[in-house]
């Protein structure tokens, strides 16, 4: 095991991830994230992206190895406000009746003054474009608003590391575009798991590919995602925006009627 790593926001060392009573899903993972770095996490369904996030967040104990966030080891069950996890299902994360209550939930537990809390909450809502929706019941928000509400609830903790699990799922293109703009503007380190490779490409200069329990590639996004052989080997496809073509021929046209 490595000693404390004061330089990286996140440092996984020989990490094995798995659910209690099951064989490990990921084995012997090692990687670091620098402060403010945006990294994409790509892999097929069941590769273990969500499981890895739960381990980094300290919800799921590691089978082996260590996770450090901001140089301090993650202890399962300990509250670490410097890590924020945005869930794959927005509904799971929004458990308070109204938007404002949900976003305020976290800061309430940080022991801030009332004024500080309000200021932070307003800032987070504004950053996510949710001002004016404060009193809306959470389940009346649209899909995109729900997703942004989750991000606001994470941002308001002023984390150093945000883990985003499929942030663009079920969003239309306008919402997705807004989300990309929002995330691009963030100074926090981001780890973004997604099947939406175009989004990963726009957001993350660096990409990690996981499949069959291990890291298969870790490098510059355009090189990794552009590598047709690598992508095919792990059930992925090179994103359209990286394939050289001229807008013709590539599309399968069905013989209709």
């Amino acid at each position, binding site marked *: 095991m490595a000693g404390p790593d004061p330089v990286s926001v996140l440092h996984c060392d020989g990490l094995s991830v798995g659910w209690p009573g099951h064989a490990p899903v990921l084995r012997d993972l090692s990687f670091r994230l620098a402060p403010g770095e945006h990294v994409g996490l790509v892999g097929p369904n069941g590769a273990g992206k969500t499981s890895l996030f*739960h381990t980094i*967040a300290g*919800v799921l104990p590691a089978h082996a190895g260590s996770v450090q966030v901001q140089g301090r080891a993650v202890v399962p*069950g300990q*509250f670490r*406000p410097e*890590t*924020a*996890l945005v*869930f794959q*299902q927005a*509904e*799971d*994360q*929004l*458990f*308070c*009746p109204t938007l404002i209550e949900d976003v305020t*939930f*976290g800061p309430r*537990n*940080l022991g801030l003054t009332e004024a500080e809390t309000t200021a932070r909450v307003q800032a987070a809502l504004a950053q996510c474009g949710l001002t004016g929706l404060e009193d809306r019941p*959470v*389940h009346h928000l649209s899909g995109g608003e729900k997703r942004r509400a989750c991000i606001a*609830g994470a941002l308001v*903790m002023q984390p150093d590391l945000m883990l985003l699990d499929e942030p663009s799922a079920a969003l239309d293109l306008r919402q997705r575009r807004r989300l990309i703009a929002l995330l691009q503007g963030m100074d926090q380190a981001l780890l973004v798991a997604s099947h939406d490779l175009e989004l990963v490409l726009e957001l993350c200069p660096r990409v990690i590919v996981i499949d069959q329990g291990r890291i298969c590639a870790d490098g510059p996004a355009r090189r990794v995602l552009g590598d047709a052989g690598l992508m095919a080997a792990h059930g992925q496809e090179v994103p359209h925006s990286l394939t050289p073509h001229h807008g013709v021929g590539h599309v399968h046209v069905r013989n209709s009627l």
Partner: protein
Amino acid sequence: MAETSPRARLILALVLAFGFAAVQGLAVLPLVMALALGVVLAFGAGRVVLRRMRAPLLLVLGLTLVLPLISGPTVLAQIGPVALRLEGLQAAALIAGRLLSIVAVTLALLATLSPFDLVAGLRALRVPALMTDLALLTLRYLDEVTAELRRAAVARSLRGGKRGWRALPDHALGLASSLIRAQARSERLWAAMRLRGYGMGPEPDAPPLQNFERLAITGAVIVALGVIWLDRIL
């Protein structure tokens, strides 16, 4: 015996369990326990029964520790302030014997079935469709809803949710949002069910009981009545 239908198993379990529950004296208890063991062996369910007997065994242990100390006038032995009483001891033995026999029989007959088959058995026993449909849907979504509740608890703890009794109101909030989601989901579910003709088709007829099943049920009734008769005359 493995091919006994869920319906026949449910009838067998009910008949034997009530027969055993009717025992009031200690004399037939060994016979009852032997019968239970026989059923377990006949259905090849030894391992399942052993695995799931732990909770009932603990309960029985608790009863046998407490009852002999607090009930009955006849003191068998006195250790300081603690008196061991005969009637309590008898009561504990009776309860323990009945409980273990009934649990063993029900486990042997029913625990090897999938819960869905069990509900099919209930339907074949003419339990109202409203209840069996409720049971099927509950079984179908139990795992998903449990996982949902667990994820919501994780989401709370990740944002520094309180612990201990002060978390009760948060717990209520989580439950409320689960109920709201369940309501929304049930609307989609109803659409899905109706679109595939829920309630349009004929009620599926349960296949008639096979001969060996009738025989087994008759045998079980005779055994149960026999046990009760022996219990009353001994």
